[in-house]
């Protein structure tokens, strides 16, 4: 075993990702390429400065204005919990909470959220104690491969808040009632923006019910 191999073995996957991101930040070269997606030969536009409050911490970023919120989190702040699945708002893996409301972070520009508070999966736990939604996903095995899980959990936290505020859904029988009961059908409709390719849906529904304090 040579020196390089032993070095890699000691590093976790996350360390590799975070180190890679830091190196990228230091060189500053590939940022425009990351933001641009498709190849663009034109010079990058002038950078903009964005102040974001992420998981309770202020961050000041200088970004190519094309940078999506998802890429700002993952590539500039090494917050890789939010996942890039489709990058087109179809899968929900990138779901984060902005001022408490769930959105797809891939379909918004970081610069549009200057001054706003963002909660990602990294910000849900209370130090060593998992958020009740995280704990319920673990207990009910609400995942298989885990790629969609951070989006599912952020989405579920946002969904319960919407439900508590009386938000109806497409399957709500009577729109004139102030709040619909969270049945399984309601939970599934309200979570339809989060796709799970492993089809862990029954366990996801059970986990959400437990976190909502309902019988599972």
């Amino acid at each position, binding site marked *: 075993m040579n020196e390089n191999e032993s070095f890699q073995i000691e590093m976790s996957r996350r360390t590799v990702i975070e180190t890679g991101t830091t190196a990228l930040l230091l060189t500053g070269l590939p940022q425009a390429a990351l933001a*641009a997606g498709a190849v*663009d030969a034109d010079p990058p*536009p002038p950078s903009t400065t964005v102040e974001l409050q992420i998981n309770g911490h202020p961050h000041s970023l200088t970004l190519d*204005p*094309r940078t999506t919120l998802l890429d700002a989190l993952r590539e500039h702040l090494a917050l890789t919990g939010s996942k890039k699945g489709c990058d087109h*708002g179809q899968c929900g893996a990138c779901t984060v909470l902005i001022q408490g409301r769930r959105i797809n972070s891939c379909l918004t*520009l970081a610069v549009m959220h200057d001054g706003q508070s963002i909660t990602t999966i990294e910000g849900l736990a209370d130090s060593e104690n998992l958020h009740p939604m995280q704990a319920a996903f673990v207990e009910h095995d609400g995942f298989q491969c885990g790629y969609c899980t951070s989006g599912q959990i952020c989405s579920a936290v946002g969904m319960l808040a919407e439900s508590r505020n009386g938000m109806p859904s*497409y399957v709500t029988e009577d*729109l004139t009632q102030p709040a619909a009961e969270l049945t399984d059908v309601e939970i599934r409709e309200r979570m339809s*923006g989060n796709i799970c390719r492993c089809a862990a849906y029954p366990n996801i529904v059970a986990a959400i019910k437990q976190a909502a304090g309902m019988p599972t």
Partner: protein
Amino acid sequence: MKAFIYQRADTTAHAAAAAIKPGAKIIAGGTNLLDLMKLQVETPSALVDINRLPLDKIEETPDGGLRVGALVRNSDLAADPRVRQRYGVLSRALLAGASAQLRNKATTGGNLLQRTRCYYFYDVTKPCNKRNPGSGCAALAGFNRIHAILGTSDQCIATHPSDMAVAMRALDAKVETVNGGGEARVIPIAEFHRLPGKTPDIETSLKSGEIITAVTLPPPPPGVHVYRKVRDRASYAFALVSVAAIVDSTRGRIRSARLALGGLAQKPWRAPQAEEKLADAAANTASFTAAANAVLEGARGFGGNDFKIPLTRRTLHSVLAETTRT
């Protein structure tokens, strides 16, 4: 994504003045625009962010209607108690669209301006008269399962994807705008979206730099409100056919009916001839059939979407039966 200059508008006048410049685009929710920019279907040279403008209120109008600010998010409009009580068809249509995450971001004005989901419009390697005028239409002889059967032209058979706009069409909503010179204008929703004709790239009657500021809803007409959406999966899919219906009936007799359909044309399709067939008519299969025939007059399939003609007929029968049950 192509490079652009980002500007944040402080006032509506500033936004309209910035938006009139060639290559400039307004961004609000951005859920459709950014998707298209990633694919380089849209390549604006400047983005004018209007999210900080004070256009996010829902207010009562003196005549008993509602005025909905252009930046009211789809989820907030759907959940508003006044909309749920008095404009059920609109709340239902909004909740039928997209996912909760997208509804939290998407705006009232942006929903009206969203682009078609025609596969060929999205694929920049294919001809498309809407994206690249004069290049041809790949959908005419291509995969056209999701495409239009009404109001098509030999240039374009795309559909408008909005659910919200279909309900607003049934409600006779009005679109309020302002231009760079500060002049306000009111556009009836019937005249807001355009059929493709020879210029499928021109989708609305908005002029360059003109910005939607609000949508007003007249007082709700009497009757049962239904929004029925038929799609390939139970949630989070665009309509193959949708029907917004407001039907006032009693004991098997229809007093008045309003019908608007989605998934069938480049604009929300109102059917006044069908409504005439239903006015003061018996609520039975014969009048439902007459109404469906009137809706589908001139309908034409293109192979993959032929099924939409009988599907529209069946959906209309089902909705009319549901709304006249009492």
